[in-house]
């Protein structure tokens, strides 16, 4: 934005050195979820008994306010199933920490929609991975399309402006980008498209679900041509080598541990939301001196803020554009971190994927056991006739 007499390092270079506080912080409030999406990046399902209490969450919000973290992206699990969810949202906004929360829509009834419409500091992001029930429900589960649409209808009817529709791009929905845009326009919403990561349960389905190389080009071209008002969470920087520098909006940088991070439901801090694995665990808020201490002093984050080696990519002319791609995508597909992204636009990922690979499994898994139930009707709610055997084994809804 500004210039001076002396040349200033590019912002992206500044950001790679890390900031005093994250620009954007993802906070997963619970591992509990009423759905069991096949690609869930946090392997959510059951609540973790160690999840942070209301008071512990408020202490973190106080700290975020002191650090001037302007807003948090709240997710899960399904965050709205926490009984204190709205209390925490109100507490955050009252303490100058804006909230954007991701939901499958389960709790966005007319009453909640009206309350949300009255707030200036809350953004709502409804997850939808197909523009039709058929495509969406195959990934997110039976009834989930109807649930999301109902939430969007309630928000629009309440006068909530500019909800976000959040889409993870897969092999089965890349052809629906125009339809997603039309859906967003219909509800006065903004479309957000992000990359499918092989994180959490996503590791199990990534091979079948991730867009083909031809689809990556299709996606890139669509974003360049029609994506001016489409958000991407800056997640397609691995595709920036497909065109002119700067054609894709955003910083084109992996912000893990530098400008972003994740706080998980038990207070563990990871480098990014797609990296729930011991290798990317920076520390725990409860056992450290709070979040600021982890952010500023953890060994892992300090390492990530050092200049990174281009490794096998050092001879590639696109390295400046893609910076070797996404760390989590490489790690969870079993590729070396200092080599090409599995979806490298130069095609270097494919031979690497074809070789023998050891895919690291995260020790953090809250998936409910057993298969997802087949569709039983439009209302995904059953009354218990007997108490659940284990408290956490039931859907929290």
């Amino acid at each position, binding site marked *: *934005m*500004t*210039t*001076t*007499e002396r040349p*200033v*390092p590019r*912002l992206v270079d*500044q950001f790679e*050195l890390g*900031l*005093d*506080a994250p*620009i954007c912080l993802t906070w997963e409030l619970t591992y509990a979820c009423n759905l069991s999406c096949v690609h869930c990046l946090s392997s959510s399902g059951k609540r973790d008994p160690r999840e942070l209490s209301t008071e512990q969450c408020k202490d973190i919000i106080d700290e975020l306010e002191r650090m*001037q973290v*302007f*807003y948090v992206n709240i997710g899960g699990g399904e965050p709205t199933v926490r009984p204190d969810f709205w209390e925490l949202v109100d507490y955050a906004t009252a303490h*100058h920490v*804006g909230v954007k929360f991701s939901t499958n829509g389960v709790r966005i009834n007319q009453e909640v929609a009206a309350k949300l*419409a009255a707030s*200036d*500091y*809350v*953004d709502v992001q409804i997850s939808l991975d197909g523009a039709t029930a058929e495509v969406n429900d195959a990934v997110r589960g039976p009834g989930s399309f109807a649930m999301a649409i109902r939430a969007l209808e309630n928000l629009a009817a309440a006068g*909530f*402006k*500019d909800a976000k529709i959040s889409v993870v791009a897969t092999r089965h929905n890349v052809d629906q980008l125009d339809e997603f845009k039309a859906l967003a326009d219909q509800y006065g919403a903004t479309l957000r498209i992000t990359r499918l990561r092989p994180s959490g349960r996503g590791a199990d389905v990534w091979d079948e679900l991730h867009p083909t190389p031809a689809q990556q080009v299709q996606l890139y071209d669509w974003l360049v041509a029609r994506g001016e008002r489409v958000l991407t969470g800056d997640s397609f920087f691995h595709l920036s080598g497909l065109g002119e520098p700067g054609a894709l909006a955003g910083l084109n940088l992996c912000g893990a541990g530098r400008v972003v991070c994740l706080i998980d439901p038990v207070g563990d801090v990871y480098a990014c939301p797609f990296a729930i694995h011991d290798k990317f665990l920076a520390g725990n808020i409860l056992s450290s001196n709070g979040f600021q201490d982890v952010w500023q002093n953890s060994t892992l984050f300090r390492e990530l803020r050092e200049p990174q080696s281009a490794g096998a990519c050092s001879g590639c002319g696109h390295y400046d554009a893609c910076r070797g791609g996404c760390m989590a995508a490489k790690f969870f597909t079993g590729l070396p971190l200092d080599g090409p992204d599995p979806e490298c636009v130069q095609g270097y990922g494919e031979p690497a994927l074809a070789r023998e690979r050891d895919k690291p499994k995260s020790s953090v898994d809250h998936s409910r056991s057993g298969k997802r139930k087949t569709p039983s009707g439009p209302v995904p709610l059953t009354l218990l006739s007997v108490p659940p055997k284990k408290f956490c084994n039931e859907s929290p809804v």
Partner: protein
Amino acid sequence: MTAPAANAVAFDPGLGWRLHHQVSVRPEPFGALLYHFGTRKLSFLKNRTIVDVVKSLDEQPDAIAALRAAGIGDQQQAPYLHALGVLVKSNMLVCKETQ
């Protein structure tokens, strides 16, 4: 939710300006981050001098006076005026006289 699109305000450095009341400034080693809670827009101030200028706007009669007070000579003003103009356009700064 999102504030209505800012009216296209022309930046007149001869007028008084101040930060929009929904804008927060966070100091960083390189300068500062600005966040507008109304428009949800993030901006960057890329050096400490422009941070000083922006922070002092409220107590200065006009933008030119703020630049001079920050020790920016008349010959060096152009990039700073440009930066302030960008902030006005994105509704980060509002005119004291018309608000």
